[in-house]
């Protein structure tokens, strides 16, 4: 399963020049501000536009190659496309919309798989309705199902949540997580919302003005301060991998390990409301934490008598002034020796947002060993926050 992109295309003011490769299944976020060329790029992958130059290869098949005059029409590319505005066919029922691609597929999906997809998306009860009778969230789920029933080699999602309000987003996100975890399908997810990317994506490609600024794992990209103005990382904080080490059901807490440091969060349930039970334990063993900068405080000594459960030794990597007298402090987990650059490279980084006044009052310096008081941790899957 892979996707290789190397294209150039001029569309109005936008000069698209993109080159990257996706080799693993899972979600790759195509992230960037509006007008950075994200939609143009996936339209080129789907075959809806013809780039000026370059090549696009899906699973080893060249679907576009200007030098060899290859430009497969969309229907021959085995690409599933979920549009921002769902684009269900208004004259067809949900059932007929779902089966649209299936009926046209030379190699149709077996019925059992179809039933599984319909069940996964929770749209079994909508089959005889017309699109006009669906809510925005239901439309997007049907649209997702319609694309999946075409048995695509790759799924393209163009900001599928951006037209929805927060309640609808929360309704869809678990389905996208289930899709990521249950189907071995590479997904290219266009988004300009960093919280969605942080929650869903495994890899990300950062676009700016039509070019690829960076690509790699979400953890690596979000840890890069040079990309912070683009990723909005100062608001987001950090996304770091963690392992579930145990539960205390009576106490209602779960223990996590993050680079050798124990963190405590409220008891974790199934990763997603629809994930099958046996998969839950293994799936939860590896998870990711989302620690917002505004939820992290800095203490120079271990604070005593404090309600926050998570106090972690950290080493200041750098301090960066923000607007409004704010200060972003990047922190390596663990007390590290300043000169061991190699150790630092592998230690996860979290961020604290403090005032410039606090920074000067505590006289914080790079390399200083302090403690991070983490007020709240969001764990991948069901959103759960630890209380202060």
């Amino acid at each position, binding site marked *: 399963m892979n996707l290789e992109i190397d294209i150039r295309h001029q569309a109005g003011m936008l000069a698209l020049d993109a080159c990257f490769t996706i080799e693993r299944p899972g979600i790759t976020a195509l992230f960037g501000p509006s007008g950075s060329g994200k939609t143009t790029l996936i339209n080129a992958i789907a*075959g*809806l536009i013809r780039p000026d130059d370059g090549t696009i290869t899906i699973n080893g098949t060249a679907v576009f190659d200007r030098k060899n005059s290859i430009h497969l029409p969309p229907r021959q590319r085995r690409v*599933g496309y979920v549009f921002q505005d769902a*684009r269900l066919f*208004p*004259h067809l029922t949900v059932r007929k919309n779902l089966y649209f691609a299936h009926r*046209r597929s030379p190699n149709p999906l077996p019925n059992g798989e179809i039933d599984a997809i319909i069940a996964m998306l929770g749209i079994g009860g909508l089959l005889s309705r017309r699109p*006009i009778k669906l809510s925005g969230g239901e439309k997007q789920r049907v649209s997702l199902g319609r*694309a999946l029933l075409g048995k695509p080699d790759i799924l393209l999602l163009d900001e599928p949540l951006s037209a929805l309000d927060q309640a609808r987003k929360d309704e869809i996100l678990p389905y996208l997580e289930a899709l990521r975890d249950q189907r071995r399908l590479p997904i290219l997810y266009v988004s300009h919302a960093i919280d969605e990317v942080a929650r869903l994506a495994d890899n990300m490609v950062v676009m700016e003005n039509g070019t690829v600024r960076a690509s790699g794992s979400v953890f690596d990209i979000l840890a890069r301060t040079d990309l912070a103005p683009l990723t909005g990382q100062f608001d987001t904080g950090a996304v770091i991998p963690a392992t579930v080490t145990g539960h205390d059901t009576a106490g209602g807490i779960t223990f996590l390990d993050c680079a050798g440091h124990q963190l405590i969060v409220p008891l974790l349930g199934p990763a997603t409301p629809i994930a099958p039970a046996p998969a839950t334990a293994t799936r939860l063993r590896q998870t990711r934490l989302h620690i917002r900068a505004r939820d992290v405080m800095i203490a120079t000594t271990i604070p005593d008598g404090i309600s926050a459960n998570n106090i972690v030794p950290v080493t200041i990597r750098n301090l960066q002034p923000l607007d409004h007298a704010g200060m972003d402090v990047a922190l390596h987990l663990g007390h590290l020796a300043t000169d061991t650059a190699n150790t630092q490279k592998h230690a996860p980084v979290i961020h604290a947002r403090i005032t410039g006044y606090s920074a000067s009052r505590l006289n914080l310096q790079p390399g200083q060993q302090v403690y991070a008081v983490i007020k709240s941790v969001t764990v991948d899957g069901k959103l759960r926050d630890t209380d202060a």
Partner: protein
Amino acid sequence: MTLSPAEIDALLLSLKIAAVAVAGALPFAIACASLLTFGRFPGRFLIDAIVHLPLILPPVVMGYLLLISFGTRAPIGAWLLHSFDIRLVFSWTGAALASAIVSFPFQVRAIRIALENIDPGLHQAAETLGAGPIDRFINLTLPLALPGIIAGAITAFSASLGEFGAIITFVSNIPGQTRTLPLAIYTAIQTPGGELAAARLAMLSIGLALCGLIISEMMMRGIRRKLTGQVRP
């Protein structure tokens, strides 16, 4: 009120001519509207102008033009007569041809507006879901344009029922052959003491028009409810 055989003749003839005219022109109207909506080629403007010509020309001039091209001694008319033994002049088929041409722009305009209103995004979606151009035309374009196609057909049918100038010029006024309702009303008015007959025929025309209006409204509502879930647009 009971209808006389002559009145029934005129009524049935009008309905037959209008129905054949609309049905016969429909495929051409769809093709023409698609060409004008989706086609990008030089000379598009010329086709647009020719299609709309019957709207701006006096019907009598249309009838005259038909006569000089489809008359038995005119080039096309002579060829049809000798090759296929088809004679349009003085026959109801000629009246249907005249009606079809005169009402053609109504069909094309309504279908074209419907085609232009189809979200191109739906075509893109259908493309990514494996539908080729012909598939998309049959399963997406035509069903979505159906309200416009029906609206156009009904307008054209009404226009055909009322056509006078082109028919009388091209195929004359022959009872049972080309004497449609408007021509029968005209004949009754021209006949001394025919006022009552004219009034009865006029009533018939008005009743027919009202029926058409009600049927079309019901059909449009049904389709709209299917597509938008609303009774009113």
